[in-house]
């Protein structure tokens, strides 16, 4: 079988090939990045959700912020998928790789902690600015991750950039 033939290549050649693969992926990932306006909107929506959750009480309307934030995120993601599709790129929405699964689980954990921190510190510790801080952290984190890792895989194997 052709694909099982053993070839001998030097360490340097192998390193150069891996470097070129990394470079190709890096360039591709850059071109798959969402428009900045969508990244900003998604980040702000995440902040709104976290902040609203932290501020929600029986006698106020902050819960509405969570619904608006969630709806905005859904619309932005749908827009991003549609734009990419028009440009000839079908983004993988489902978690199909181990790296992506790890990334999603890590993100969920971080967000759970931020959400709990934002609300619990305000309600039980009386720290009024906890939702503000939590919202800022959540929004910044989402914005950074969407910009830096558009494919959603930020746990990668070792890079070969010399």
């Amino acid at each position, binding site marked *: 079988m*052709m*694909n*099982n*033939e*053993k*070839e001998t*290549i030097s*360490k340097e050649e*192998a*390193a150069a*090939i*891996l470097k*070129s*693969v990394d470079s*190709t*992926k890096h*360039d*591709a*990932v850059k*071109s*798959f990045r969402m428009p900045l306006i969508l990244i900003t909107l998604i980040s702000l929506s995440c902040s709104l959700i976290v902040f609203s959750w932290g501020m929600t009480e029986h006698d106020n309307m902050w819960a509405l912020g969570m619904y608006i934030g969630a709806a905005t995120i859904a619309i932005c993601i749908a827009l991003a998928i549609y734009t990419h599709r028009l*440009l*000839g*790129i*079908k*983004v*993988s*929405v489902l978690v199909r790789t181990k790296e992506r699964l790890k990334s999603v689980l890590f993100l969920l954990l971080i967000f759970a902690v931020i959400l709990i921190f934002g609300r619990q510190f305000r309600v039980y510790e009386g720290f009024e600015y906890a939702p503000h801080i939590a919202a800022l952290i959540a929004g910044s984190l989402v914005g950074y991750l969407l910009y830096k890792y558009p*494919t959603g895989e930020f746990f990668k*194997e*070792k890079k*070969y950039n010399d």
Partner: protein
Amino acid sequence: MTKSTFDTIIHAPNRLQICSLLETTKELEFQVIKEQLDVSDSVLSKHLKVLEDANYVQLIKKTEFTRQRTWVSLTPNGRKSFKLHLRELRRIIG
């Protein structure tokens, strides 16, 4: 754990780049790959044919908005072989 293998089909520079591109997404259009690789239609078609014959990629032609588009994706077999090939290269480096 599956043993890493040196895959001569994937190892050709353009095919390696095609697999690298496809690994990051679900599907890419023929034109996008062509632009990323900066090769002609015929060169890309030739490489895709080799990968398709090895069951590493899948080509689907669709008409969208009155425009014929060819979508290319890595098959599960292709994804696995590409990973094993990269693993073998990493093993060589040590």
